[in-house]
């Protein structure tokens, strides 16, 4: 029953889940999840433009285009919020709906025939088809194209998170304190946002722009319910992410439904159960709520 193709697809899903879990923890702690959500929508025009220039979904152009639009998103949100004094939720909502709409329009304009990029593919991806692009050299199988791009990205994120742990940590909890310690908050902010953009883009072919947010949010949120320690949160988040992916994949195969939505649905279920046990807690200690601002 375990086919080689399933293992390839599963590897792709795991790499996405791991990269997203590592980054998502910071987003959840910094209360910047909606910015992550916004980025995952608004890289779309970047992808389309880069695609038109480079005509390859996995080319370097696409990554650059996406990273540029990802960082641009945070800049626009910041501009609306700080300079034009629009309240924050509206700044976020306005920015990403606009950029996303722009992306959709670009697709409609250029997707006639010569460009192999359609709305559904961008939005949902098809995890079950990633095995098709096999990399075979001298008759030996080395992986798939998705794995070939996601693996370096994951390693990069991993190294970055480990090496920059201190910076992220200070920036997540107390950026003012970090500043006094000589840690450049702006740098870590944009580093995080840049990586979120790149990971989002690399994932969009497999899981789509909307569901990648699920990978970014749900496992870290579940982990946050279970621990307050940043390192433990990362480990838990990786574990939960892995469990969700494997279970979701198997169930999707069993019931013949789309894979990535099933993974996120399972993630939601795991969150829900954790939430019930941990938070409603059947009478145990109530969590201390950190005041917002």
């Amino acid at each position, binding site marked *: 029953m375990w086919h080689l193709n399933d293992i390839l697809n599963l590897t792709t899903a795991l790499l996405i889940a791991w990269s997203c879990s590592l980054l998502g923890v910071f987003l*959840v702690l910094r*209360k910047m*999840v*909606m910015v992550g*959500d916004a980025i995952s929508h608004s890289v779309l025009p970047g992808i389309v433009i880069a695609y038109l220039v480079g005509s390859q979904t996995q080319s370097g152009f696409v990554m650059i285009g996406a990273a540029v639009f990802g960082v641009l998103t945070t800049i626009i949100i910041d501009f*609306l919020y700080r*300079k*034009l*004094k*629009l*309240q*924050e*939720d*509206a700044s*976020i*909502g*306005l920015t990403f*709906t*606009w950029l*996303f*709409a*722009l992306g*959709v*329009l670009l697709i*409609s*304009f250029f997707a006639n025939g010569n460009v192999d990029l359609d*709305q*559904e593919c961008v*939005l*949902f991806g098809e995890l079950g088809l990633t095995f098709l692009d096999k990399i075979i050299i001298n008759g030996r199988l080395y992986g798939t194209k998705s794995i070939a791009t996601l693996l370096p990205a994951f390693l990069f994120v991993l190294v970055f998170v480990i090496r920059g742990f201190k910076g992220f940590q200070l920036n997540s909890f107390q950026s003012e304190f970090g500043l006094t310690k000589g840690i450049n908050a702006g740098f870590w902010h944009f580093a995080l946002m840049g990586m979120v953009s790149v990971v989002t883009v690399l994932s969009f072919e497999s899981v789509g722009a*909307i*569901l990648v*947010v*699920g990978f*970014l*949010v*749900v496992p870290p*949120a579940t982990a*946050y*319910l279970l621990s307050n320690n940043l390192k433990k949160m990362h480990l838990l988040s990786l574990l939960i992410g892995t469990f969700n992916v494997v279970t979701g994949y198997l169930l999707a195969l069993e*019931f013949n*439904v*789309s894979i*990535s*939505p*099933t*993974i*996120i*649905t399972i*993630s*939601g279920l795991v*969150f829900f159960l954790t*939430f019930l046990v*941990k*938070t409603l807690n059947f009478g145990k200690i109530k*969590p*201390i*709520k*950190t005041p*917002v601002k």
Partner: protein
Amino acid sequence: MISSTLILVLVGLAVISSVAGVMGCYAFLRRRTLIGDAVSHAVLPGVAVGFMLSGTKDPFALLAGGLFFGYLAILSIDVIHRKSKLSEDTAIALVTTVYFALGSVLLSVVSSMENGQQAGLKNFLFGKAATLTELDVWVFAVAAILVIVAIIFFYKPFMLISFNKDFATAQGWKTNNYETLISLLTVLVITIGLQAVGVVLMSALLIAPAASARYWTNSLPKMMLIAGIFGIISGVGGGLLSLVGEDMPTGPWVVMILFFFTMITLLFAPKKGYFAIQKRTNSNERKINEENVLKILHQLGEIGKDSVTITEMLDKRRMDTTVLMKTIKALKSERQIEESGAKKIKLTEVGRVEAMRVVRLHRLWELYLTQQLKFKEDHIHGTAETIEHLITDELEEALLKELDYPDVDPHAKKIPY
């Protein structure tokens, strides 16, 4: 070119856009616009379940399913946010994607049951206004009337909740019930609108018109009116623009227009727009600079230099040279100062009176700080520097009385009258 289908589509777009714009006002004022986005994603499983149960695309089954899941999503966000340490934005993103994923799974079940239904999902996301039927438009109209009646009927509690919920509770309103009602109405509007205009547009429609309208007025009814009109213009405009190409999604075009108008508003709106605020800040700054320059001239006059050069002024007080030159030019045109010989300037009679006023306020305030508030003498200059630009005639009168028309300040300098 203008066919009856086109008119039908445009009317439908106008109705749904204006209603969404009006309901968006509540969401905007309560800072909950992103929940609208969550709801519009979370309606998907409802649509799927409605489809599964009724077996057809019966709009009322889809509507019921959508309403149920949309409201459930709002409840979920609320419970997660209130009962755990997770922040509201985390809760919103989580609920959005999980519900959406669940909907996608259910839809893939639907599509494996009956072929070719996946197209429904694409319309759900982007909307295809061209497929609006007369029944849809009637549904929009009924919903619009429902919303308007509710707004008129519950005008007061809705308004209080939007601006200050705690106050509303203190006034004895059952705020939770009214909040539920607002949520339900919002979900209703989103659910019926989705089929026509799609998820992206529904989110934008709840945010952009209200955000723009807020920059034009402080009154809720006016804000709703403006948001509604703005919605109509964008809806119809987007509908027409989407005709430029075949198979163009309507929603994104409407979003483009919405964004365009919103940006114009944010930049150019009177009073609250970016440039209006800039202008106000600048004019404040100009006034302060002018008063500072007059003060320098007065102080130099006290040591016998009535007509002075720029260098002498800069020696007295450190100032940006270009700012000083600009300020001098402005003062000249106001006839507060005049040229006196080669590259020298002096105060006119008007200027002298004004300069005396500024210096007087500065010194009065210093005296007040030391005498009445017991400040140390070396701690008073800074605040006096700031407050001299703000003290009104009325306050000055009070200060004079309080200090009994003093002659000198704490530094033994003469207070000019």
